[in-house]
């Protein structure tokens, strides 16, 4: 998250916006963002439908029998202007790879 904040000016120049998604509640996310000086929104998703929708549960089920939820895994997703998922990567995000990918998307968009 902190690395995304460091590269935020580059994402903006490449017409991309960053959204974080967490299963933590709003107040926890607020303090987390404050501690890391994050300026982009972090969505609170305690019932992890977003995690399920974007496939962040590769090895376990999102919901347990007792009604609680499993934590979803780390996944970076790049969605283009048409809403199509163009990039997926699990575990820690690789900012350099993401920035390179965004350059490609921009090149692609300018060719059209």
């Amino acid at each position, binding site marked *: 998250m902190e*690395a995304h904040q*460091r590269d935020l*000016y580059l994402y903006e120049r490449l017409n991309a916006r960053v959204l974080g998604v967490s299963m933590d509640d709003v107040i926890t996310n607020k303090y987390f963002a404050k501690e890391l000086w994050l300026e982009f929104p972090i969505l609170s998703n305690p019932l992890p439908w977003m995690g399920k929708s974007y496939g962040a549960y590769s090895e376990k089920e999102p919901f347990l029998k007792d009604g609680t939820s499993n934590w979803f895994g780390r996944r970076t997703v790049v969605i283009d202007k048409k809403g199509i998922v163009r990039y997926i990567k699990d575990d820690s995000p690789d900012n350099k790879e993401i920035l390179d990918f965004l350059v490609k998307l921009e090149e692609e968009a300018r060719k059209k």
Partner: protein
Amino acid sequence: MKTIKMKRNRERGIMARINIGISLLIAAGLFFGGCATLAPKKPSALVPTDRGTVVFMGKYEFKRPPAGWVLLKNLEGGDFELGFLRMEKGGFPSQTTFIYDDEPFGSSRELERRSEQYCTRFLFNSGVLPQIQKKEKVEVMGQPALAIHLEGENPNRDEKSRSKVYLIKKGERIISFVCTQWRSLRENYDPEPFGHFEAFVQSFKFLQPTFYEELGEKMKKLKG
């Protein structure tokens, strides 16, 4: 019949021994064949120059510390790009480490603000709670920089630390050089390793554009 069976068994035994022998020969052949193969020699991470410096992976040139310092390199991304470590005389944890980190903690691209962010997390997990002793504006590699001196103690673990951090403006980004010396509370700090750190920093040169400099060029082309 008994004699024939015994003979067959003996023949089978001989065949088995021959088979084992052949297998061993093949195995030995493979083993020694493997020895004879010339495996490509891994290039050294540090290549000496005739200027009394070394080149690291073709990317940076600098004065390396003398024998006794171990190279720390990070090839797959992580907390730093490269550094050196030396275990020193004295009780645990007597050692000095210095590193070059191209992405120091924090996000501000303004030096003073970045130093505030950086210092809140410096040696965060160690429990020594480093305090700023001195902060001064300097120039490193001809670029504006901040030199920060920090010291901290953790009485519960009988540890103390003394650090010097350079935060340096490089283009739009901020890079850092960090040296930390660890001692037990009753032992004195040693200024000598900090001299090697200074020589490392003052001699440091970039031989290739960084990822972010290359990205900047690509983005300029996109706009053009």
